[in-house]
């Protein structure tokens, strides 16, 4: 695809703009911002990746992954602003997930240790972990706020902070991971996953594309469960002090 054919795809941006204008949906500004941002961000990433792939230097891979983790942390922290120290909790979670998944993939030689594999897979893992983190934090904060009476009841009866928050923690972990598990049940039946479709369009063998897609799916399952559990177990202790007293969630500043 060249830039001329790419520019023709802007028709797909014009259609919603015209519809929004005609029906006074008020989506024009957001649609335009989203379009411009996606063009700039993706082109920039494309050129950066081209440079990193050509350089084939380990340091560039690490920097690229750290950039992804930094951006994911920055994005997800807004949702957990009421939890003390959420920024480093997210950062640690993403780093551990990345080490765990890449450790298995590279350690068992499931994929070759080249930037072409490491960076896109890291992007999918960290991106998915970020979405899971946001889902988890949204639900966990809501559960903590809504179940304060139950939390204090358990504390007042001599329960530990972990026992007092257990139900809320489990509810939030389940709620955030269920979409990943459910979507895997219908994958291939309702829609072909993006990565697999991309590979097939690019001319890859469909069976080979399916194999890679399965790898990603399994990877994302681990990512989903580990992200929620890690964030949960890192977050709940900050809700209590040393005297096992339940602290109020701090006021969100964002």
């Amino acid at each position: 695809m060249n830039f001329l054919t790419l520019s023709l795809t802007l028709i797909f941006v014009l259609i919603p703009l015209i519809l929004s204008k005609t029906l006074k949906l008020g989506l024009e500004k957001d649609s335009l911002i989203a379009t411009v941002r996606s063009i700039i961000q993706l082109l920039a990433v494309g050129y950066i990746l081209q440079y990193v792939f050509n350089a084939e230097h380990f340091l560039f891979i690490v920097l690229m992954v750290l950039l992804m983790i930094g951006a994911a942390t920055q994005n997800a922290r807004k949702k957990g602003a009421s939890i003390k120290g959420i920024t480093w909790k997210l950062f640690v979670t993403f780093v551990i997930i990345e080490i765990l998944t890449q450790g298995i993939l590279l350690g068992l030689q499931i994929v070759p240790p080249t930037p072409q594999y490491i960076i896109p897979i890291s992007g999918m893992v960290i991106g998915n972990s970020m979405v899971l983190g946001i889902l988890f934090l949204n639900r966990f904060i809501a559960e903590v706020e809504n179940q304060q009476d139950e939390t204090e009841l358990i504390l007042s009866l001599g329960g530990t902070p972990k026992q007092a928050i257990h139900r809320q923690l489990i509810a939030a972990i389940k709620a955030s991971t269920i979409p990943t598990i459910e979507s895997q049940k219908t994958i291939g039946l309702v829609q072909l996953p993006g990565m697999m479709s991309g590979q097939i369009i690019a001319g890859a063998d469909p069976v080979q594309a399916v194999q890679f897609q399965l790898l990603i799916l399994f990877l994302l399952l681990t990512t989903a469960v580990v992200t929620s559990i890690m964030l949960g177990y890192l977050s709940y202790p900050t809700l209590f002090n040393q005297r096992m007293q339940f602290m109020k969630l701090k006021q969100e500043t964002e």
Partner: protein
Amino acid sequence: MNTIEKPIVEFMNVNYSADGLHILKDISGSFPEGKITTLVGPSGAGKSTLFRLCNGLSSPSSGELQLKGKSIHEYDPISLRKNVGVALQSATMIKGTVLDNLELPLTLQGQKIALTKAEELLQDVGLDESFLYRNAQDLSGGQRQKLSIARTLVNKPKILLLDEVTSSLDRVSQHDIEELIVKINKKYATTIIWITHNLDQALKIGHYTWVMMEGEVIETGEVSILHHPKNERVQQFVKGELE
């Protein structure tokens, strides 16, 4: 408090502030062991906050709070909370049956309640043993309160804090709970500290009373002081002119 009575909880210039509000102001005084002390006063007087300090759910901002002559900070929070039980107006129940709720204090310690013990506790609070397997969410307000008190008793607390446990109940249920409180006090020699809006109830059941207003203790003594309070604001409160 009568000088002969032995104090079980003692406040020494206790202050408590939160969110920039000075909620408890220089509280000093004590609750006598084995007696029923009522806490009365208008809404927002800081009575419930005082309970939270006794149960260790909050800590004083300054001053000293002692339990049996020992600073409350010297107690392990878990053993403190087992010894100082609390039942609230909300009578919060966890999801599950009456039995699940009743044995919650033991479940938290990895134990189970003996069925005979569970039945005995229900009988103590005036609930039939057939209630054991009912859904706790289906109980009436009065039944929930009784279950809440029974659940607190599982830990065999030395002190029982009751926060407005009868205020949303009908007359019959109120009377049942009043009888229950007197029975617990006599049967287990439990010290009971009871927040109530109902002055008749305080006079009928309590041995001693504290009158609190705007975070301060205004008057304390035998419950009969409510008949002839010295303080002008307390007089207004007793006459129902303050809410």
